[in-house]
């Protein structure tokens, strides 16, 4: 819009009027002033903990990219918002597993790509899925697609996904998550397959209108979208790393939705500003204390057992997570197949038993180093562990590392104890993958190696019987605990707040499904 300025002289009285009005506006609480300006717009403002990295699903780095991809692209199926893990049809009008290795699908006939790249066809599905597993693509998301052999195109909008072997996570990870995004074959080919931060064609209910690095990503309603209309005209996604900052922005009315820190949960339980609400969701992350089984100081199984029994998990969680989380029983969170009802060693410390085990181990003057990230949550947890282990006579030196040095711990041969936390997708296959013998020297920092565990990891993802599959993963976690290399701590939690103008649509782990956000 072009603004036309008229040359009006500003007299003293006029200046004073303007200054008074400005002053009155400035004296409004920040939230009110901002909300007053934004009250009649249809822009949803949400916080992301990181900035967008890639608009190519093959190179997506995770949640921060997926929040955008899930809004501007389509998948055969999407996660269903709610408290239970489930999926719903998206670009597909039909998906049917005809046998353990063949999945038939048919696409809707009303989805098209922008920039003149035409209707979405089965060829686009074939292109999108096969390029994820192609060696030439070198996609970090290749494991998500599992044992995909190829996609057979049987019609313009029909096809069959063919697997080399049964793959249960297809329904929980491959199709509804990062690797399941369908891109335009023609658009990607026109770019020689190289798509970085600008999408050559989109198909979702939103289009990416702009991206200002480290500032914001703006999505706007796709005018050609024929599916159910999204509630918001625009979505602004603001990358804010720090939760304190995000909370202040939310309370000032600058954000409609954000994850908040666990330390603020108690405060928000007493009331959320701007008429909003607090929602508490469980998380899939898992945090644990690991012990390097290859380290000379940790060869004695009774010493490791003594450490397991001496760590009082509830105290660690009270101090480091403000008591807002529950103890975990392993690496698979409640709600997922394979979650254990209880761990073999109770979360509460048993100092008598720990001292007895230490005496039986014959180890004296035990001094160990505990590596941890330089985040307050972890350093706090480490100090509680340090204090509790001191009660049975084990001296712990807390070694705080910045993220670069910490995540290179696989190469640290002197690694002894480590406080760690991994992210997770909603399938147990993703959890056991990092603790196999093959992962020693990569992500398996405890150097845990067990043939039965490896066998379970290799076979459980093929199991279609849910009970049998659950039993296998429960056994896998028993083996981890029996090794003495792990003291499981928590799956953490995902507390989020939203303003009264928004009705969020969230996955069961509290992550946002922006395209389904409604107005409050």
């Amino acid at each position, binding site marked *: 819009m072009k603004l036309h300025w008229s040359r009006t002289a500003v007299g003293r009285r006029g200046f004073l009027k303007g200054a008074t009005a400005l002053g009155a506006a400035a004296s409004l609480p920040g939230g009110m002033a901002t909300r007053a300006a934004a009250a009649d717009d249809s822009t949803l403002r949400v916080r992301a903990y990181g900035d967008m990295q890639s608009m190519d699903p093959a190179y997506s780095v995770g949640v921060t990219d997926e929040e955008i991809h899930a809004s501007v692209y389509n998948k055969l199926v999407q996660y269903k918002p709610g408290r239970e893990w489930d999926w719903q049809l998206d670009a597909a009008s039909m998906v049917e597993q005809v046998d353990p290795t063949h999945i038939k699908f048919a696409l809707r006939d009303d989805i098209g790509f922008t920039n003149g790249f035409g209707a979405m066809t089965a060829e686009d599905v074939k292109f999108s899925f096969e390029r994820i597993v192609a060696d030439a693509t070198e996609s970090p998301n290749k494991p998500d697609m599992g044992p995909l052999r190829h996609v057979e195109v049987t019609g313009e909008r029909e096809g069959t996904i063919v697997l080399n072997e049964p793959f249960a996570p297809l329904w929980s990870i491959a199709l509804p998550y990062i690797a399941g995004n369908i891109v335009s074959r023609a658009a990607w080919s026109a770019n020689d397959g190289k798509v970085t931060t600008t999408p050559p064609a989109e198909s979702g209910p939103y289009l990416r209108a702009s991206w200002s690095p480290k500032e914001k990503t703006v999505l706007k309603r796709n005018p050609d979208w024929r599916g159910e209309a999204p509630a918001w005209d625009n979505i602004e996604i603001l990358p804010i790393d720090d939760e304190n900052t995000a909370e202040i922005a939310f309370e000032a009315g600058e954000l409609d939705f954000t994850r908040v820190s666990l330390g*603020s949960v108690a405060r928000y339980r007493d009331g959320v500003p701007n008429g909003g609400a607090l929602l508490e969701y469980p998380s899939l992350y898992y945090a644990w204390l690991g012990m390097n089984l290859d380290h000379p100081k940790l060869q004695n199984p009774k010493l490791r057992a003594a450490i397991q029994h001496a760590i009082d998990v509830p105290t660690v969680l009270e101090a480091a997570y*403000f008591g807002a989380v529950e103890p975990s029983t392993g690496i698979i969170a409640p709600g997922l197949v394979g979650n254990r009802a209880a761990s073999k060693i109770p979360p509460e410390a048993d100092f008598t038993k720990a001292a007895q085990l230490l005496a039986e181990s014959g180890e004296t003057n035990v001094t160990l180093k505990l590596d941890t990230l330089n985040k*307050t949550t972890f350093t*706090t947890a480490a*100090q509680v562990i340090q204090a509790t282990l001191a009660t049975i006579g084990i001296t712990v030196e*807390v*070694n*705080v590392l*910045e993220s*670069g040095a910490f995540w290179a711990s696989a190469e640290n041969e002197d690694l002894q104890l480590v406080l760690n936390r991994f992210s997770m997708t909603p399938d147990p296959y993703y959890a056991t993958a990092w603790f196999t013998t093959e992962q020693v020297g990569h992500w398996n920092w405890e150097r845990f190696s067990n043939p039965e565990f490896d066998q379970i990891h290799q076979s459980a993802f093929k199991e279609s019987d849910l009970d049998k599959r659950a039993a296998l993963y429960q056994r896998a976690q028993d083996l981890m605990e029996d090794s003495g290399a792990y003291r499981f701590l928590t799956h953490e939690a995902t507390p989020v707040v939203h303003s009264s103008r928004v009705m969020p649509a969230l996955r069961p782990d509290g992550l946002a499904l922006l395209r389904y956000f409604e107005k409050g």
Partner: protein
Amino acid sequence: MTVLKSQSRSSQILRAVLRDRLGMVGLVIVTLVVACALFAPWIVPHDPNAMNIQDRLQGPSLQYLLGTDQLGRDIFSRMLMGAQIALKVALPAVFGAMVIGMLLGMIAGFGPEWLDSLLMLVFDTIRSFPTVMFALAVVALVGPSLNTVILVVMLTSIPTYARVARTQTMSLRSADFVMAARAAGTSSPRILAIHLAPNTVGVLAVLMAMDIPTVVALEAGLSFLGLGVKPPTPSWGALLKDGYALIRQTPWLIVAGGLPIIVTTLGFTFFGEALRDAVDPKVKKGR
């Protein structure tokens, strides 16, 4: 006779510092900080490392003067003990840097030209690294500890002292009393030790007083990044770090971490400036 002269000069400097109002304030603060550091183990109301999870994140009270942190530890006690850590890093680091820097600087200024060029090249190379980045790199390589911080500060500060000592030495090496000593057959090491060192140490002492707050801030910065002293050792930077993370739960932590850094920095700066004016009144006149 030399001792009497020295005492008289010291008294003059002290009197000049005390006459300067800001210098006086600085001296009081420095004395308080040093006293806190020296007597902290005896004056802290609580064990600074004793955890009491039930009492975590409490506000100020008679029991806990500045409240408690996320582990229920007394913030006031940790703040007092933090003074000890700050000076434990700052004093040996700055003193070590001054001694080594003075020695190398005098050698560079008095020795042959090739040695001067070589030492200057080394000093300039070290100075070309940004201190914080250099500190982060060293900590990442050898791991965080009190000794690592001292070592990093010492290494990065040596060139500054060396350059000042070199300049002072170069300006004095043609002085009459040095020429006279040379004519009398006095050896170079003896000239450096007896004639040049006493005339250099005063300037470096002023520099040292001015450097202490920088080092305190550097240690706090490293601890703020979680790369300074190891937990549970209380340090002002660690208090700041936890305070920043918990600012919405308890603002007292960040006050307990930030205030002593500000006060100590001001104190040493006021004292250092007054000391500089007293040692070299021409500087004051020139201002």
